[in-house]
């Protein structure tokens, strides 16, 4: 959570807003947008832990349901711990983002920050070349997602005591379809709003 806040504080400032929005808005309009952002920033910070907690609960529930169906046993806490541990891998792209934009490419826009997705299929294509609904699945298809899956499999293997093969089967058959449903849902929302 502190890393996300750190990234926001280090990379997003007033100058960036002025430079990125100058093509559409007047200075006064940008200033007003910034004021509203500042006024509601506490909500954004409050939502980070809440959403993370919800993600842990959801991932654990999905894995627990898969385990219940496949092994006829109910466990929740080991899956919850696994979800928390695996999430650490998602901190790496945030660290890369901070280093990339603060040290290597300091001239960036808000769009660059939003579209930055290291080691993903999205980084292989230009954002303007793909349809808006396709960007999210391309961002999800990253090496970090692969590492996340591997960490969940290892976590399930270690904490629940399943063999590598059974843990892989459990994760592929439960987390896999759930991720697919989530990606489809996000794509649906993007298409509806466009």
């Amino acid at each position, binding site marked *: 959570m502190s890393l996300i806040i750190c990234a926001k504080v280090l990379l997003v400032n007033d100058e960036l807003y002025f430079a990125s929005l100058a*093509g*559409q*808005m*007047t200075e*006064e*309009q940008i200033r*007003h*947008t910034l004021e509203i952002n500042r006024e509601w920033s506490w909500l954004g910070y409050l939502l980070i832990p809440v959403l993370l907690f919800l993600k842990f609960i959801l991932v654990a529930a999905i894995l627990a*349901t898969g385990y*219940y*169906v496949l092994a*006829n046993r109910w466990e929740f806490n080991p899956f919850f711990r696994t979800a928390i541990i695996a999430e650490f891998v998602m901190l790496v792209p945030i660290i890369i983002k901070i280093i990339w934009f603060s040290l290597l490419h300091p001239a960036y826009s808000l769009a660059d920050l939003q579209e930055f997705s290291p080691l993903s299929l999205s980084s292989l294509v230009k954002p303007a070349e793909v349809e808006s*609904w396709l960007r999210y699945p391309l961002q999800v298809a990253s090496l970090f997602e692969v590492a996340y899956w591997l960490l969940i499999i290892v976590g399930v293997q270690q904490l629940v005591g399943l063999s590598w093969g059974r843990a892989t089967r459990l994760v592929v058959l439960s987390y896999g*379809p759930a991720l*697919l*449903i989530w990606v*489809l*849902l996000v*794509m*649906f929302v993007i*298409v*509806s*709003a*466009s």
Partner: protein
Amino acid sequence: VSRAVRYGVVGGLMALLVGLGWAFNSELRQSRARKQHLARLPSFVARGLDGSSLRVPATTGRPVVIIYFEPDCDHCQRQASEVSRHADEFGRTQVFWLSKDSLPALRGFAQQYGLLRFPAMRVAQIRPAVAVTMHFFSVPDLRVYNADKQLVCRYKGETSAAALLKQLYGSL
């Protein structure tokens, strides 16, 4: 676990996946059709502030700016101030302020921001069905059409008059 529960979970998951996939595909087709439809300004009838019918666009051969708004929205109020300040620069452009709100509310808005002083500006009420057809779902929603009624650009949220004029002069 009984076989019924296992089949139920797997079947439910499959049904959800297929359902979402179908819904997404259907929405994607609709979205593409919508984009094609809105690429050219459709002609429709609105209600002018005096209650009479007003055709949009009113005349042909002139660029059109459509601003979908709500009188109570802060962003729309600032948008009105911004456009009103530069109203003279819109020249031969037809600027339509469209809203689903009541006529008295629209009259108050037009009066407050002095929109009626400029012949290029029209404030009108549209039916909810028109808002759906035009895919207006957030305010302010601004669209610039050239003299051939082709969509030049679309802005969601407050937009400077300079940005609109740049698009207009580029399309004139």
